[in-house]
């Protein structure tokens, strides 16, 4: 037993004795976690950063939420839809209160939804067909549409990247392009503003006023029962430091554990390494449709033929245990799964066929400017492997290393690659962010207003509308299949497979929800 453990045990013993002497009160339970990233932005509407979304799940609540099967369930509100699917009525449940003591009202819900609808891709699409969104009274919100929107509840109840979190109207009235200054929700934890230090950590305390639903917790739905007094998120840029801290008991959880450090924890029965959720992330490559050579669909197809997922995933995660070859743009194991058009991608690629296609397309050796972020651990491997695969098929690849900040600035440039533009870059998405054609930004085909790469693809826009209008799950699946086939034919982007880094927790931490977004309700912490 280590000295620090001995000290902490003694301290714990004294604390317990003192607490009992003082009237039987229990010692405060604090869970200390090192999250996947540093929390810096606190506004869950202005940014799609996952860590900000995770923060929002702590302090805010949502109207409806996905259960563990992905089905939408009531959370803050019960919802009913009219027979024609054009009117949705949300009725807030009793006992909902913001952290400043004010009750949650329909006006708060409307203001929050309106702000969300300005920033979220799915929200914007719903707002395009919104006839009215009004609070009928303090408890009732009526959302009337001018046209049916098949995945309405799936969009309002989605888990990522921008779920519509409910905040007080006076805060939600902040313009959507300016960050909010107050962080008050009605969720199961309260944010301790004075302890927030970007780059160091954030603290949350149990919201004693929170009234959980009576149903058992399931996914992001059901009763959000909090069993700990405090949760602290610490920032530790060095993974080795985090592992040392976990082993010494300084922290309880590492949310995203680098695979190469897992052997350090083997044989330590106070620590468990595990995958928290079945679905992880999709890694992908995006080409620039505006400039040669990828303005030519045949050359994009040649690039698709040249590439193979397995080597990319192996370089990214180092262990087959944590990746999955998968050609489905909406994810494998999902209800919209289809792998049409990815046969070579999920096998070894077909460089010979790619060479032939390049010849047919008249590729003249125009350099492919491929951007490589050198300091981003989950993004630096993909460009290296992809460059090798493209070169093997005859592409002239100009790989340009840079930091992620430079990359995100440069990818916004519509200039030609020689003038500071680009041809290809790579990024990752949580599976729930690409789970359907409404949510996935890569499938936006609206030219200059689309996501970086700017495909001008009226056909995919038609197909997305078909998906939105589809009234049944079967019709939605049929529309999604067509989108998969079309996206691979035009190479909207190159899905490079799925991966999932494990978490490492001390075994004193139990009952963690198996959700892709780490949530801290439900979990328990026992004495060491």
């Amino acid at each position, binding site marked *: *037993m*280590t*000295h*620090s*453990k001995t000290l902490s045990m003694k301290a714990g013993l004294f604390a317990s004795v003192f607490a009992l002497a003082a009237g039987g009160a229990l010692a405060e339970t604090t869970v200390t976690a090192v999250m996947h990233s*540093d929390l*810096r*932005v*606190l506004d869950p509407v*202005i*940014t*799609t*950063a996952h860590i*900000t979304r995770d923060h929002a799940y702590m302090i805010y609540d949502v109207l409806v939420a996905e259960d563990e099967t992905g089905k939408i369930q009531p959370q803050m509100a019960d919802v009913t839809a009219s027979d024609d699917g054009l009117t949705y009525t949300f009725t807030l449940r009793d006992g909902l209160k913001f952290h400043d003591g004010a009750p949650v009202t329909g006006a708060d819900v409307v203001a929050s939804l309106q702000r969300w609808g300005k*920033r979220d*891709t799915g929200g914007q699409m719903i707002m395009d067909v919104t006839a009215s969104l009004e609070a009928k009274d303090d408890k009732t919100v009526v959302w009337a549409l001018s046209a049916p929107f098949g995945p309405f509840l799936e969009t309002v109840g989605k888990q990522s*990247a921008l779920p519509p979190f409910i905040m007080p109207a006076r805060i939600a009235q902040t*313009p959507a*392009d*300016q*960050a909010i*200054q107050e962080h008050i929700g009605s969720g199961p934890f309260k944010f301790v503003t004075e302890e*927030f*230090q*970007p*780059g*160091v950590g954030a603290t949350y305390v149990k919201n004693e006023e929170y009234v959980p639903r009576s149903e058992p917790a399931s996914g992001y739905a059901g009763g959000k029962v909090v069993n700990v007094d405090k949760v602290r998120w*610490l*920032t*530790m*840029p*060095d993974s*080795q*430091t985090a592992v*040392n*801290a976990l*082993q*010494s008991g*300084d922290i309880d959880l590492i949310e995203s554990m680098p695979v190469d450090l897992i052997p350090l924890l083997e044989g330590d029965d106070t620590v468990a390494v595990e995958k928290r959720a079945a679905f992880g992330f999709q890694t992908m490559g995006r080409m620039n449709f505006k400039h040669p050579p990828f303005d030519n669909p045949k050359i994009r197809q040649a690039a698709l033929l040249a590439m193979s997922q397995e080597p990319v995933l192996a370089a990214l995660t180092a262990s087959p245990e944590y990746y999955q070859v998968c050609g489905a743009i909406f994810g494998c194991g999902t209800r919209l799964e289809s792998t049409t058009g990815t046969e070579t991608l999920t096998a070894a690629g077909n460089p010979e066929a790619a060479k032939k296609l390049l010849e047919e397309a008249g590729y003249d050796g125009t350099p492919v400017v491929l951007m490589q972020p050198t*300091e981003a651990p989950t993004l630096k491997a993909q460009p290296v492997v992809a460059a090798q695969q493209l070169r093997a098929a005859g592409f002239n690849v100009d790989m340009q290393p*840079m*930091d*992620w*900040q*430079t990359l*995100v*600035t*440069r990818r*916004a440039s*519509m200039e030609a690659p020689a003038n500071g533009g680009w041809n290809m870059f790579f*990024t990752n*998405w949580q599976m729930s*962010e690409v789970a359907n054609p409404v949510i996935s*930004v890569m499938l936006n085909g609206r030219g*200059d*207003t*689309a*996501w*970086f790469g700017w495909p001008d693809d009226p056909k995919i826009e038609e197909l997305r509308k078909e998906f939105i209008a589809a009234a049944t799950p079967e019709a939605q699946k049929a529309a999604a299949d067509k989108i998969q086939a079309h996206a691979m034919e035009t190479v909207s982007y190159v899905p490079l497979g799925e991966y999932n880094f494990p978490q490492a927790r001390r075994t004193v931490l139990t009952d963690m929800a198996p959700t892709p977004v780490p949530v801290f309700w439900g979990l328990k912490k026992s004495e060491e």
Partner: protein
Amino acid sequence: MLSYIFKRVLSVVPVLFLVSVFVFLMLRLTPGDPAAILAGDNATPETLQRIRDAMGLNEPLLTQYVKWIAGILRGDFGTSLISGVEVLDLVAKRVGPSISLAVLTIIIAVLVAIPMGVIAAWKHRSWVDYLVMSFSVLGFSVPVFLVGYVLLLVFSVKLGWLPPQGFKPLSAGIAPFLERAILPALTLASIYIALIARMTRAAMLDVLNEDYIRTARAKGVGERRILFVHALKNAAVPIATIVGAGFALLISGVVVTETIFNIPGIGRLTVDAVLARDYPVIQALILLTASVYVAINLLIDLSYSLFDPRIRY
């Protein structure tokens, strides 16, 4: 003396002005966009443009610079573009750990290195001298992250005597502070011990060959008094310079050590701000660093007159 200090303080103004212009322009000319960091991965170019407008980044550079300087003159360093926290608040919370770590490191370094350097010079070309010099070369050559990891492995992971990470301020008590600060301070001190010991040895060797040392010996003054009173005082000017410069370097941030031991100091704040292109934070940190260097240089210069009465201001 007072007029010298006044002139030196006055000369800080043009220095800081030039630093401010240089930093402001360098940051604006470096590729990067804080709006992109704020908005996240799926922001469209249109959204980024709107956020840049809201941040004031689309205003002419001169307007942005004048606004920034006017804010500083009012004592307002602005707010972080990314977190929205006031820059002064952000920096103030990081200064404490950096200063306390720097002070502890320098105390350890001076207490160990100066006797080492003095003894090495005294026992010139003996095994003691070679041992000190070998340690010195080792201190320079071994990367700081390796020293840090080895200390962690031994004292935290294997022996479990000390916690592996974090920082407790002195206000929490000396024992909790030392418990978390001693390993990072030793890690950093390994370099400074090497540097100061080497400098002390070289300065002492020069002085020990002076006539007045020979005279002191001839008069029968004891070796200890010769070394630590007669010689060391006269060798102190270069040693004070190196200690002062080292202290300034420590305060302005030691990123690797702060990262390994998870210390919330200035170094990590600087790197985070640079990676996020958080302009107001970087600008404030560079001005702070420049001010620290100017102030420490002034103190070093003033200290010379304490060691050498011939130096007058």
